């Protein structure tokens, strides 16, 4: 018991749980102010929606979690290498466009591998969109927060123009639907969870998380990326090419964001279509929440993505309690706000742990 508690990561996990609780409480207070009679019903809907529908509900959680995990991974990877990729939304939008464009127009690709090609297209799109901020960061010292925010707005207009110029369904005012072969296969998940929407996206997300974990923790390449993020000058002194590594880590981050875009839109059934509105996709910002909650750790990010996917699954239930879905966003935002207090909470957690330690007696020490 003491061994587990002494780990620094357990302190972090405890402080994350404290921030989740604080955020939830804040959400409950807002709900009580806005609509006191329905507040507790709505709140229990948020807490229980994921489990109240049995396997179907759990499938819904997994379905929601896949893009959240991927955008979370994109941002967590950048965080680990000392960069803040706030432009995941833009990369995701361009990645989604590339994936859908390949899914609609590349009819010559044989069906069984069409979805793989479309996904690779999505990754490529995300990489292209982060290339300019990456080069500006590495060679011109432009802060990536500002440049990627600018790229978000450019992506908003660019994706609308690109869709309207290539794959536009003018009747529905949306993009055309992708071919069946370009949709990510379900790998029998739909039958296991009895949920026709559930596809292989969640498997891709978990696989990506595992790969990133291995790259960051077990390879020299990952070590170099982290070293540059930790102290650019020291890494340079140690003979690491800092500029190249900054470009690499942003390219990987953007590629994962583009992959998220592909996973969102290459779904089975009638499927999602790309909309042509002047709105920046919100997944990139939710991804920040996922990454922060997962403490920028790839494995932690998978769990925090599942957690937010779980809350997100209460969407329908909330409507019946007369609450709009934005209450979920309020809770998410306040969880991130409280997660910024990690340092303080960690100190608090350390105190609790040391108290437990004293009760355990000196024998364990």
């Amino acid at each position: 018991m003491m061994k587990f508690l002494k780990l620094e990561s357990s302190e972090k996990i405890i402080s994350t749980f404290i921030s989740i609780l604080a955020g939830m409480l804040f959400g409950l207070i807002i709900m009580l102010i806005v609509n006191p009679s329905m507040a507790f019903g709505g709140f229990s809907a948020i807490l229980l929606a994921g489990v109240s529908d049995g396997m179907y509900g759990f499938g819904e959680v997994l379905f929601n979690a896949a893009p959240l995990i991927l955008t979370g991974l994109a941002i967590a990877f950048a965080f680990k290498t000392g960069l803040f990729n706030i432009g995941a939304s833009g990369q995701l939008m361009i990645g989604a466009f590339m994936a859908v464009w390949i899914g609609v127009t590349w009819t010559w690709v044989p069906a069984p591998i069409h979805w793989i090609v479309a996904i690779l297209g999505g990754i490529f799109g995300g990489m292209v969109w982060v290339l300019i901020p990456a080069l500006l960061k590495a060679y011109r010292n432009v802060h990536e927060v500002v440049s990627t925010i600018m790229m978000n707005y450019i992506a908003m207009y660019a994706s609308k123009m690109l869709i309207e110029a290539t794959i536009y369904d003018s009747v529905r005012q949306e993009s055309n639907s992708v071919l069946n072969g370009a949709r990510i296969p379900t790998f029998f998940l739909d039958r296991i969870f009895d949920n026709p929407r559930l596809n292989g996206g969640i498997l891709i997300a978990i696989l990506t998380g595992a790969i990133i974990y291995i790259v960051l923790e077990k390879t020299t390449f990952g070590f170099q990326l982290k070293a540059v993020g930790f102290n650019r000058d020291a890494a340079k002194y140690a003979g690491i090419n800092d500029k190249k590594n900054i470009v690499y880590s942003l390219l990987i981050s953007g590629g994962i964001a583009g992959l998220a875009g592909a996973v969102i839109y290459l779904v089975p059934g009638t499927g999602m279509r790309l909309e042509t509105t002047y709105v920046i996709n919100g997944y990139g910002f939710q991804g920040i929440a996922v990454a922060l909650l997962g403490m920028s750790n790839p494995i932690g990010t998978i769990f925090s993505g599942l957690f937010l996917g779980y809350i997100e699954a209460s969407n329908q239930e909330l409507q019946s309690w007369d609450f709009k879905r934005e209450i979920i966003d309020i809770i998410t935002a306040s969880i991130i706000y409280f997660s910024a207090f990690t340092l303080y909470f960690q100190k608090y957690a350390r105190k609790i742990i040391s108290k437990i330690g004293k009760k355990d007696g000196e024998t364990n020490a």
Partner: protein
Amino acid sequence: MVKPMRNYLTRKNVTIGIFAILYVLIALWNNSSFYDLLRWTLFSTIPLAMVAMAGLYSERSGVVNIALEGIMMFGAFVGILSLNNLQGSGMDGQFVLFLVVIIGGIAGLLFSLLHSYASITMKSNQVISGTALNLLALALAIFVGRALSTSGTEEITFTDRFRIDGIPLLKDIPVLGDILFTKFYLISLLGLVIFGIAAIVAYKTRFGLRLRACGENPHAADAAGINVYKTRYFAVSISGLLAGMGGVILIIPSSTSFKASVYGYGFLALAVLISGQWKPARVLVFSFLFGFLMNLSNGISMVQNAFNNLRANEGFMQSFYEGMYAFFRHLPRDIISMLPFLVTLLLLGLTSKNSQGPKAAGEPYDQGKR
């Protein structure tokens, strides 16, 4: 002895020269649709400059304030909401307007306290706190807006009865009178005055000097007897006040409703601040540039008209005007909308290498590390 030419090419003279040339150009294009465009430009320049000034206060004191967008959003939300409620009360129109700007400012100040608390007292990561507050302000504006409205949308409407047709003597000043004192809003002028006062306070007073010291070297400032925590709290609060007022001053002239959006102006203000190298005069110039670009998409028909009128004039510029008219008529609207952001990237790429930002911005001050 004759001084060489480059001695006259000081930054001050060049700036004066550029403004003089601009003034002459505008006077030559004495044309009502061009004035309309410039007036619209000012409607976005002034809030943009105010919010960039808000960022200047915060960052000069050592607190990175990426939450500007959220603070603006919250200020505009509370301000327009109270305007919506006050308008039926029979109070004098212009008085309500000033009241609403102040309410928006106070709302922004209160919201910014969340950022100060996280980044100064709790010493947490300022970018994370800022991002959280941006998300929170957006979600609150939509959620509360929808809960309060009868139609179930987040839109909060108001009737615009605040425009002033012209001030008798001032509007007759050539060019400036047409742009500043005709068909204008008092709060825009108020914003300009506040910007000026804020700039003077930051750069010409003892408080301003102390504030900037906290952003450059907080440990030295502390050693000199300045309370770094208090100064930073003060600076971020002023930042919240300015950004909140900026939100209201942006929405009222440019629209008749608030739809849980300040059009990304908070982020743009950050870019203005960085391109303007954290200096008030340059911030104002860049705000004008961005305000102009932001309105090109709205004002593109005005520009078209301007060139359409101009090409009727015979002269050596005629083919140029013809070309410009044809160019603007065929330019896709979305490309024009992208321009401010593309120009920002370009400017940042050109100016960032020798960036002169506050040295301690982004680092929580820990007295124990002294």
